[in-house]
């Protein structure tokens, strides 16, 4: 079987091979021989895109129809229509799956939206109060069986996102206990859905928002929340494993970058130190953060570079006292100059950097 790579990678490989060939490093036959072992991976299929968007439009139309609460037909009839349409599109989707797999699958996606419309219709029928985050939990739960049955990572992704909405929407309505079950599920099923990086990315986001909900539940002080997420970010970045390490590194890098910058705000430290020393502590932290970021930049982390820039900018906008600001400006500029020097040297010793 041929090795499958993306279209962008294939054109990169072929242009490099062309370059070797023109420099006389390899022959024309060798070049063609190497290109033979590759095959461009599926990518976007036009028909799939068209039918999927079509199905989503119909589904969203039905959701909007329910929201219009048109009283030309009664709630009960609407509910029966929802049941009928849901059963119908799924049945049709199943029957078409043999000969028209793309259209068939898009009908199943439509079913997922129709099911959601059913949930909100019931919310309307009985005038459920509150913000109704349970709707998103039930929506997520209801489409998960189909995601498993079809091994469809996009359906699973949708379930995952809905679950995230539930977690983040429950703030005023008690603790989202379903998180204790839902968070393990998104990881345990990771390999079932062909180790999709997309799913892993959202699984991590779900977990992080659940941890945030736990800290809110126990009314953890802002400083400790930021410190916890800063440490989680460092762990995500640093721990070696083979569960999609590049995803973890990028997310970890962004996480400790953002929380690190939050920790440079003096006021956040007032739960730990006296009001007079908060500025000192935050500045010490900022220098430690910059040092860490530079160490990572040296290893080739471009995201860390962005956070160095943000930190400098954050101090630039911090105050209208122009003299201290001018100092920061000059220091920041010198830091960047220093970085440029490092980067140039890195290129020279041909230690190419990566994104994270």
């Amino acid at each position, binding site marked *: 079987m041929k090795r499958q790579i993306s279209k962008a990678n294939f054109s990169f490989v072929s242009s490099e091979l062309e370059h070797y060939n023109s420099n006389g490093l390899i022959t024309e036959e060798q070049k063609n021989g190497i290109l033979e072992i590759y095959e461009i991976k599926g990518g976007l299929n036009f028909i799939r895109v068209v039918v999927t968007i079509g199905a989503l439009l119909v589904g969203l139309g039905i959701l909007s129809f329910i929201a219009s609460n048109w009283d030309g037909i009664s709630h009960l009839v609407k509910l029966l229509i929802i049941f009928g349409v849901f059963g119908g599109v799924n049945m049709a989707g199943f029957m078409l799956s043999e000969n028209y797999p793309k259209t068939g699958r898009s009908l199943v996606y439509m079913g997922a939206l129709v099911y959601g419309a059913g949930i909100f219709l*019931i919310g309307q029928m009985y005038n459920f109060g509150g913000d109704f985050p349970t709707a998103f939990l039930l929506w997520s739960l209801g489409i998960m069986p189909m995601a498993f049955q079809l091994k469809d990572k996009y359906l699973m992704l949708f379930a995952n996102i809905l679950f995230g909405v539930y977690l983040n929407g429950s703030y005023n309505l008690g603790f989202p206990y379903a998180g204790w079950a839902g968070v393990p599920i998104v990881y345990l099923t990771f390999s079932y859905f062909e180790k999709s990086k997309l799913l892993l990315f959202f699984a991590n986001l779900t977990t992080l928002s659940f941890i945030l909900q736990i800290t809110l539940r126990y009314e953890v002080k802002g400083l400790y929340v930021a410190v916890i997420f800063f440490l989680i970010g460092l762990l995500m970045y640093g721990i070696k494993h083979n569960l999609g390490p590049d995803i973890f590194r990028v997310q970890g890098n962004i996480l400790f970058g953002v929380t690190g910058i939050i920790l440079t705000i003096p006021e956040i430290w007032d739960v730990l130190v006296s009001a007079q020393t908060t500025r000192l502590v935050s500045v010490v932290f900022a220098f430690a953060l910059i040092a860490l970021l530079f160490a990572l930049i040296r290893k080739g982390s471009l995201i860390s570079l962005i956070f160095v820039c943000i930190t400098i900018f954050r101090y630039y906008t911090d105050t209208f006292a122009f003299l201290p600001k001018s100092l920061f400006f000059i220091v920041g500029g010198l830091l960047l100059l220093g970085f440029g020097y490092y980067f140039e040297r890195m290129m020279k010793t041909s230690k190419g950097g990566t994104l994270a």
Partner: protein
Amino acid sequence: MTKKKTFLLAVLIPLLILSMMTIKPQATLLFGQQIALETKAFDPTDLFRGDYVAISFAISDIPKSKVTLPSDKVNNKTLYVSLKQEGIYYVIDQVSENKPKQGVYLRGKFQDRYNPNGVVDQYSVDYSLDKYFLEQGSGQDLQQESSTGGLVATVKVLGGYGVLTGISNR
């Protein structure tokens, strides 16, 4: 199980969830006791459920003096509010931690309410009955009636669970 059966199962589970969602409110509509509550209304929109009249009940504001429990057992807790009939409306009788043995009562989540001096003198209670959904564009009339005088909300109650069934002017 064959592929067809598991597919069928994946279709049935969502339908089962939808059906189960209707049991408690439908049972309340069928077997619950009807009560009238004094309300105010205004008219916002929810992205998925459409236009609704947001309402606040007279029984949602409970003065601290009505509650005999210590204050740390009230804020953020779900308690039972017993109601008694006075004229056409049902009003607050008493607040308890445990389910009352008899009478009409509603479950609600209590929240401290501060007066301008920063002292808790009231609780606001969320009975999850704060929305009445209606056809888009038809909420304005109710809102106007609400500003000129009180509205009456009819609620069906069964075992502390309430379903809002209608709003009308007095």
